[in-house]
């Protein structure tokens, strides 16, 4: 038919999208997060993002506090923190170290997994599940090892 989009055909297009917009006002959105099956694919991906936010957020918060500490009378130097931590009971010390190490180790190992995907390798359903569980295992083992250092 006609080659260039005429003013009339553009308006018809807009009429169509406006009808769609009006229909969507009444339509519900189908459920998603709450009904989708728990799979290692999106669970580990979500966990990677959450641990990343925790790690970088924590880093920024601590960095900012460290800069501001002298002006509000706090002492956040390593020696002071280490001395306070040393007074905790052993169980709490190991427990806290595992909790802090877990996001770090998970994000690191899963990060390596992400980098291999950027080379377009190991993107196969079986390999994704295998590497996923490997990362989970390595995460837990290394976090415990780090906690006992």
């Amino acid at each position, binding site marked *: 038919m006609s080659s260039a989009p005429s003013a009339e055909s553009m308006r018809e297009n807009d009429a169509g999208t406006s009808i769609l917009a009006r229909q969507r006002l009444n339509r*519900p*959105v*189908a459920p*998603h997060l709450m009904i*989708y099956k728990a799979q290692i*694919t*999106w669970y580990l991906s979500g966990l990677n*993002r959450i641990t990343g936010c925790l790690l970088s957020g924590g880093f920024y918060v601590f960095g900012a506090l460290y800069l501001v500490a002298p002006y509000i009378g706090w002492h956040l130097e390593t020696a002071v923190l280490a001395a306070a931590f040393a007074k905790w009971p052993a169980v709490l010390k190991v427990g806290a170290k595992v909790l802090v190490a877990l996001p770090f180790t998970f994000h690191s190992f899963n990060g390596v997994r992400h980098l291999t995907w950027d080379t377009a390798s190991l*993107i196969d*359903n079986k390999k994704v599940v295998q590497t996923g569980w490997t990362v989970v295992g390595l995460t837990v083992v290394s976090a415990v090892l780090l906690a006992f250092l």
Partner: protein
Amino acid sequence: MALRLASRRLALASATAPAPRIFARGMASVLEHTKGEPLSTVSELLSSTTAPTPPSKTSTIKEPEPEKSSKIKTFHIYRWNPDEPSSKPKMQSYTLDLNKTGPMMLDALIRIKNEVDPTLTFRRSCREGICGSCAMNIDGVNTLACLCRIPTETTKESRIYPLPHTYVVKDLVPDLTQFYKQYKSIKPYLQRTTPPPDGREYRQSHEDRRKLDGLYECILCACCSTSCPSYWWNQEEYLGPAVLLQSYRWIADSRDEKTEQRKDALNNSMTLYRCHTILNCSRTCPKGLNPALAIAEIKKSLAFA
């Protein structure tokens, strides 16, 4: 057909009126499930509710003529009627005798529509996994109803939802207008100006044709795109795995001459790069295709010019 259904419904109403289930288990209220997800809370407050009325609060429509040796399985199916737009979506329960039902989920849906509840609405056509019409979320996974076998354990109850985070036209029918618009936007046709060397066909070597294997078989059912959380949140601007798989199909086609323009169209922060390799797409593809790999190849070809 109508007379047969009418007489069945009369018999059903008089003989075995469906008793409302009065289970004591607490089910999530409309907004409770959004705790911890502030964005979802906001969108759900602003839009129509997405959490359907749970099965314990709706009636169960039972198998018309149960027998002693019947294998009764319960299905919970998402229902919403646009003729009553202010009513909330709900989960309607149906029980079926698996001995009288075909093996696939689509057989169960068709049997429910024919014999139990004719108002149940869903798309279907080929019943053999090639048209892509019956794409829906069955037991938490996006797949084609005609290819999904009904799990025969009668103790487990199956849940059928429409494709996640799509606007629902009615019951299990999603609105795929945007999906098709996105497909059209990548120009899914051969773009070539130089005439064929022998004046007859645009020829292609066997190796070049093999590059298209795993790409051309896509039936555009939208299972993968609607399984992608990134597509859920960025539907307007992110193309989604299905459309990106097809754009790679044209980038990889040796006969196409507009490869650079096709790659340029993807070279921005949203259309391609909202993919964060979540990998739900390849996991859910009912045809066994690998959109995630195609997207990785596109990213590689863009990165290394």
